């Protein structure tokens, strides 16, 4: 049995208030997910029959509910839960949220207390006593949580200030700016926390403009040797990120100027910072771009060899790019490919969409994700493409028509689309009505 079926059957056997049910389903959903997708069936078997679990939990809930006004108990829990959840988050936000929540909670508590007045005067005296104790304990909890939140924020402020002081004392700004370098046919950039921008050179000259914050002079080297531009920095310079600027890096950047021409390889590696390139014309070049937690964006480029773009937790955007082969990989973010011409394209992510629109694909297209839609708008008619499309919890749509979770069509260029919890949308070029007529 899979998770969805287990949860569906469990829900049907839960006899309790809606919020309580949500909690139960959430607990079990997370529990099953923890085991990992490979163990899903096994862990569900271990848990046992959803009917038994549901019946058992419903019985427990009934027992707990005795001697309580059910509605009041549930709202109370929810309020405490909502309030506690906000307090646990980041210090400043928690303080603001906590402040508001304390006021709202106090008002609500007063209201509920007033509302229960008629019931209270009719009920036994120990019900009164219970409510008094509840109110007392709640106030104690609220006070304690308020104090913790404020302390947390003060500590965070102090720590941030001292860290910043240390880093400011310890770093030195560095700049290498040279716009008439000896020509090179390979580029190797290795930096950290530093955005990299590749520019087309307008005057046919080779250039590099590298600005960083260093702890030691020897942390960076920019040279041209062996026909290669090497920009190598081991400085991680968190200070760049903290001082903040338009790029969020206090002006740290590595900008390379490449005239149109033949290059063998361009390899750019950075971390936590963007890689941007626009208007490049690099014949023969195998281009490898790697970063993390930041976007890769390429516009109007031609790479004669191939393209590899890898990042995580951020999007890859490729517009009007022409290259024989491209591999794009990210997680938790979308991949957008628009226009251009990529003979063999492989785009893979998870928790994000894959959108390929009007890109001329001549030999192969593979688009993979897990929790996101795949939208392929092909620039040729349907007959050109041999399609295999698979989704597990949704459907494949072809030119707007809903198919099923699995769709195949014969053709020449293999197109493979795969996702889990979302739809696949395929659309193809329709022949113009005029053209059809003139052929007759």
């Amino acid at each position, binding site marked *: 049995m899979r998770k969805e079926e287990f949860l569906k059957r469990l829900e049907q056997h839960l006899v309790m208030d809606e919020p309580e049910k949500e*909690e*139960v389903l*959430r*607990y*079990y959903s*997370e*529990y099953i*997910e*923890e*085991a990992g997708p490979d163990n899903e069936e096994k862990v569900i078997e271990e*848990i*046992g029959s959803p009917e038994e*679990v549901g019946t*058992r*939990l419903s019985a*427990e*809930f009934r027992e*707990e509910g005795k001697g309580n006004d059910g509605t009041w*108990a549930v709202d109370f*829990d929810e309020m*405490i*839960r909502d309030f*506690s*959840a906000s307090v*646990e*988050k980041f210090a400043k936000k928690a303080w603001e949220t906590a402040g508001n929540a304390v006021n709202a909670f106090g008002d609500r508590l007063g209201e509920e207390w007033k509302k229960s007045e008629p019931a209270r005067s009719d009920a036994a005296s120990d019900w009164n006593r219970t409510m008094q104790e509840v109110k007392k*304990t709640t106030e*104690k*909890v609220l006070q*304690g949580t308020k104090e913790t939140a404020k302390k947390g924020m003060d500590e965070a402020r102090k720590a941030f200030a001292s860290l910043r002081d240390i880093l400011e004392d310890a770093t030195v700004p560095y700049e290498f700016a040279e716009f008439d370098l000896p020509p090179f046919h390979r580029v190797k950039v290795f930096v950290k926390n530093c955005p990299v921008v590749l520019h087309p050179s307008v005057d046919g000259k080779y250039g590099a403009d590298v600005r960083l914050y260093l702890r030691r002079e020897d942390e960076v080297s920019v040279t041209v040797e062996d026909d290669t531009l090497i920009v190598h920095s081991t400085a991680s310079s968190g200070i760049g990120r903290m001082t903040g600027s338009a790029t969020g890096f206090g002006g740290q950047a590595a900008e390379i100027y490449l005239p149109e021409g033949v290059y063998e390889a361009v390899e750019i590696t950075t971390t936590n910072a963007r890689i941007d390139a626009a208007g490049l014309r690099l014949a023969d070049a195998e281009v490898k771009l790697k970063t993390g937690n930041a976007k890769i964006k390429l516009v109007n480029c031609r790479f004669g060899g191939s393209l590899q773009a890898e990042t995580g937790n951020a999007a890859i955007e490729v517009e009007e790019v022409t290259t024989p082969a491209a591999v794009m990989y990210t*997680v*938790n973010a979308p991949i957008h490919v628009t226009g251009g011409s990529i003979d063999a394209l492989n785009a893979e992510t*998870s*928790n994000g969409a894959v959108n390929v629109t009007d890109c001329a694909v001549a030999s192969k297209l593979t688009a993979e994700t897990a*929790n996101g839609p795949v939208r392929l708008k092909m620039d040729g008619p349907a007959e050109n493409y041999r399609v295999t499309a698979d989704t597990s919890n949704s459907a494949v749509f072809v030119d707007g028509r809903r198919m099923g979770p699995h769709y195949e069509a014969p053709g020449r260029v293999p197109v493979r689309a795969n996702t889990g919890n979302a739809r696949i949308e395929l659309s193809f070029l329709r022949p113009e009505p005029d053209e059809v007529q003139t052929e007759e």
Partner: protein
Amino acid sequence: MAFQIGSALLDACVLAVVERRDVYGYELTAQMRNVIDVSESTLYPVLRRLQKEEYVLTYDSPINGRNRRYYTITAAGRQQLENYRADWESYRSGIDSLMKGETTENA
């Protein structure tokens, strides 16, 4: 194993585990299972109960694109755990004496 674990003792055990460090459901079940044969369906009502009594709070921590709900002990929870520990100590030593066949005239 012949002996059933009562609900108060279960509450105490879960509180003790959460006191060591914040845990999420799956982790708690695994840790408890090292010692006693309980199911997650036994543990869920315990966690619910501890939450209602404000001995634990929950917070969410996203991981790998999904969510994990952690349980953390409160000041009131620590206090209650101390009470449980005292109760357990006297209960345990009482049972120990009995089982060892020691005299319980003044127990």
